[in-house]
């Protein structure tokens, strides 16, 4: 059981990294990675939302939707749960950590449309994970996302001083740099320690 959990974690963080391997969560990854501190804050918020969303959606799926033969309502139910969850996280952050709240700004409500959050919940269903495996996958998937976004923020801070063609300003140079980092992450594929 422990070996299973460790292999899911390793997979989610390095081998099948949510951004560099599965492409889930690219929009905030490209939009929010200007500075390392904002990136870290965003990453932590996403870890929290992904873990909690995995837990709640697993319960809803296995105790309400499947027993009542309503599996086709999964997409609808999951996205509503995620939207509500992000709303609560927003209210919570506003009251307890207002500095982080103002730093994240518009990107906090955008976690709702983050492919990674809905993606991890759907993948939990597809892979038939039990409760603990789902939560582990959610949290470690979020950690993989955070690793990717923080790494990339440092890369971006450097590219600001590079000499690239004018027409590559903005997203294009980001995407090309991301391609190179993705190639580096390919080195982890097929790894099997556990």
């Amino acid at each position, binding site marked *: 059981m422990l070996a299973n959990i460790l292999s899911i974690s390793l997979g989610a963080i390095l081998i099948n990294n949510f951004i*560099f391997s599965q*492409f*889930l969560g690219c929009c905030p990854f490209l939009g929010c990675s200007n500075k390392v501190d904002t990136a870290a804050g965003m990453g932590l918020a996403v870890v929290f939302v992904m873990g909690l969303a995995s837990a709640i959606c697993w319960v809803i799926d296995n105790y309400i939707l499947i027993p009542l033969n309503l599996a086709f309502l999964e997409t609808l139910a999951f996205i509503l749960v995620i939207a509500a969850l992000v709303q609560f996280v927003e209210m919570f952050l506003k009251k307890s950590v207002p500095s982080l709240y103002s730093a994240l700004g518009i990107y906090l409500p955008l976690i709702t449309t983050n492919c990674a959050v809905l993606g991890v919940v*759907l993948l939990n269903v*597809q892979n038939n994970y039990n409760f603990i495996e789902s939560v582990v996958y959610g949290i470690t998937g979020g950690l993989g996302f955070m690793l990717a976004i923080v790494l990339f923020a440092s890369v971006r801070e450097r590219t600001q001083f590079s000499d690239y063609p004018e027409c590559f300003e903005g997203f294009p140079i980001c995407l090309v740099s991301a391609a190179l980092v993705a*190639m580096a992450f*390919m080195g982890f594929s097929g790894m099997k320690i556990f």
Partner: protein
Amino acid sequence: MNRKQQFKEGLITNNPVLVQQIGMCATMAITTTLFNGIGMGLSVLIILTCCNVVVAALRKIIPDEIRLAIFVVVIAGFVTIVDLLLQAFIPALSAALGVFIPLIVVNCIIIGRAEAFCQKNTVKDSFFDGIFQGLGYTCVLIIMCVFREFVGSGRFGGGLIDVANGFRFTLDGTGGGIQIFPEEFGAAIMNLPFGGFLTLGLLIGLMQYALKRSEKKKKAAEHAAKEAALKEVEE
């Protein structure tokens, strides 16, 4: 609203992926064969148009505070309908696109258009907006697929075209495509995430270059016209 203007905007000047730079997750992930690209593009076009129409039709009734939640519910509804229909009638596409079909729910393009356009425009305008933006999205997907497949495996039309027994289209994804050069000489890395990021980066860079150039030309033309007008006044 000028249809020609809308068409030009959807395809070029306000292209959802290349200019607005939203909805990129799916673009990079599934553009490995032409079958996937066209399938995904058409699915998004249908869902986008249907959602645009419904949101525009309901725009006077939707309370402002919960409008995003309602958009999400409507989009999730249409996505599930398309998902079920694809699973039942084109299972190959459903298997190839995998988790990215339900992920169309959080595709920023659809929510973005609902928020920015359909709330303030008529049903007819929203309908055409959906079609043109969807076409712009599909065109980007097709260009990416063709490029990645060609450089990665020397193939054109994987999954869609079958030349083994005479030319035909295979709507169940089994076509092998036209092999332009042998697969061993292709850069297989283009089929992996690296290829996705790189291709999209190059495309957006190209689009920005094209738009800047056309803007420069316009400014130069305006400048020249002004100078000519000034000269006339002087004389």
